[in-house]
């Protein structure tokens, strides 16, 4: 099967971390590919480099290199920002800056990479495109809060969260007041709203109770059903949602079909 037929593929991925007592090789010459609509679980002992592999896929890992393609296009043809918009890494720790949950969810829409209005979420909400982007020096220090509010109004966030089974989350509360499970779901919802082609979820259900973990898993399953490619790092027993299971151990990646 050719590389081009996959939504996302990585070949020859290696990661070497410099440390005081010599360089440490995390993995070498690892290959991976996934298609839209698929869910792949990435498992392996802790410290085997699962997170390093996912951050490498999102071009966020300074110590990793290799060849990445998206829909057959080489990653070199993307700016890092455009690549990460399509290949979104979701960190394990939910970081929700802002005064309210709604502000935290709008963070991605304050960024310049979404100025061009290509996102699905923006297309449906871009009727109120009245705010102008400032020019000159002000452009560097603009906050884009108003534009983000136009593009992603509270009502649309509410709809999306409700559709994800997050009726319990109050948008006007400070993010600090959220429980661990709620924060994890808000963080996941934020990345899903940006509608990436590939979602790299780094153990987002760690530290959650079974109920919340199940909610997170079903939200992701729905996104996959809509055509997103999803890679999950998991430590929990298989939940039957993954198409494939990839195991990273001793710097090698082995793949097998999951029992469903």
């Amino acid at each position: 099967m050719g590389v081009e037929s996959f939504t996302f593929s990585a070949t020859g991925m290696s990661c070497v971390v410099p440390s005081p007592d010599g360089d440490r090789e995390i993995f070498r010459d690892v290959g991976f590919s996934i298609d839209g609509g698929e869910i792949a679980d990435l498992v392996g002992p802790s410290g085997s480099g699962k997170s390093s592999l996912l951050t490498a896929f999102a071009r966020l890992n300074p110590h990793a290199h290799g060849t990445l393609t998206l829909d057959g296009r080489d990653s070199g043809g993307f700016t890092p920002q455009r690549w990460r918009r399509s290949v979104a890494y979701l960190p394990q720790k939910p970081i929700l800056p802002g005064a309210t949950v709604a502000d935290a969810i709008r963070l991605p829409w304050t960024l310049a990479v979404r100025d061009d209005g290509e996102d699905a979420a923006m297309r449906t909400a871009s009727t109120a495109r009245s705010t102008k982007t400032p020019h000159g020096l002000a452009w560097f220090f603009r906050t884009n809060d108003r534009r983000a509010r136009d593009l992603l109004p509270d009502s649309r966030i509410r709809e999306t969260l409700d559709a994800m089974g997050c009726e319990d989350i109050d948008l006007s509360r400070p993010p600090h007041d959220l429980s661990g499970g709620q924060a994890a779901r808000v963080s996941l919802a934020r990345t899903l709203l940006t509608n990436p082609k590939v979602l790299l979820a780094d153990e987002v259900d760690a530290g959650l109770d079974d109920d919340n973990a199940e909610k997170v898993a079903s939200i992701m399953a729905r996104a996959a059903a809509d055509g997103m490619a999803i890679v999950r790092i998991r430590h929990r027993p298989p939940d039957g949602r993954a198409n494939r299971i990839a195991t990273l151990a001793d710097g090698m990646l082995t793949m097998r079909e999951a029992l469903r």
Partner: protein
Amino acid sequence: MTGNSYNIDVWGLVVALAMVAAAAVISELMRINIGKTLMWSACRALLQLCAMGFVVGYVIRANNVWLVFAVIAVMLVAAVQITLSRAKGVPKGLAGPVLLSLTITMLLMIALVTELVVRPHPWYAPQLVVPLTGMLLGNTVSALAVGLSRFYESMDERRDEIDTMLALGASAWEAARPSIVSSIRLGLLPTTATLASCGIVTIPGMMAGQVIAGGDPINAAKYQFVVFAAIAALTLVADSLIMAMVYRTCFTADDQYKPAMER
């Protein structure tokens, strides 16, 4: 200087030193153990100030444009060294950006304050240019040291937030912006506080000096205001320049976060 000024003779300096010595002895008795440092610093300050006085006196008498700029160059180099030694937790190799930002700020100050506001003859009047540069550098150095320390500290504290923002498609500038804004704000805090309190709580050093030397207090106030205004504006310029030059040290060429030990 015109007007009546009062000279300080050698005995005046001895009395001043004796005051420090007394304070040092008392601090030793109280077991605060800073007597030696206090005494040593006071002697050092006396020597440095006298040396400065001789140098400035010589430069004023020589009235030579090259000499003025040579003194300013030495002050700039010293300012870079002091900035870098005071800024904590900054990576190596910042001497260039700091020197550049201080030089631009100083040139702006000479152009605006000296040539636009005061308009002395000759245009490089050492009695004006050298002390003004000294005052400006003194303020800019502390603003830069505070700003740089705060910037790198903030970038380390916000590591998770920066990683999240980068993962969501933020550029290096967008991810660094909150740290840049907070460090510039902190660097400017002493300047704005001085601006607000001067004339009520304090008689600023420069104005006090002119008044003691027999100058017209209103004239001294005008000078003081021009200098404060210039310092406030140029500190912001210096801080912004240095941030624009150094924020990328926290990122790789591919806009990835670079941890402190790899900078």
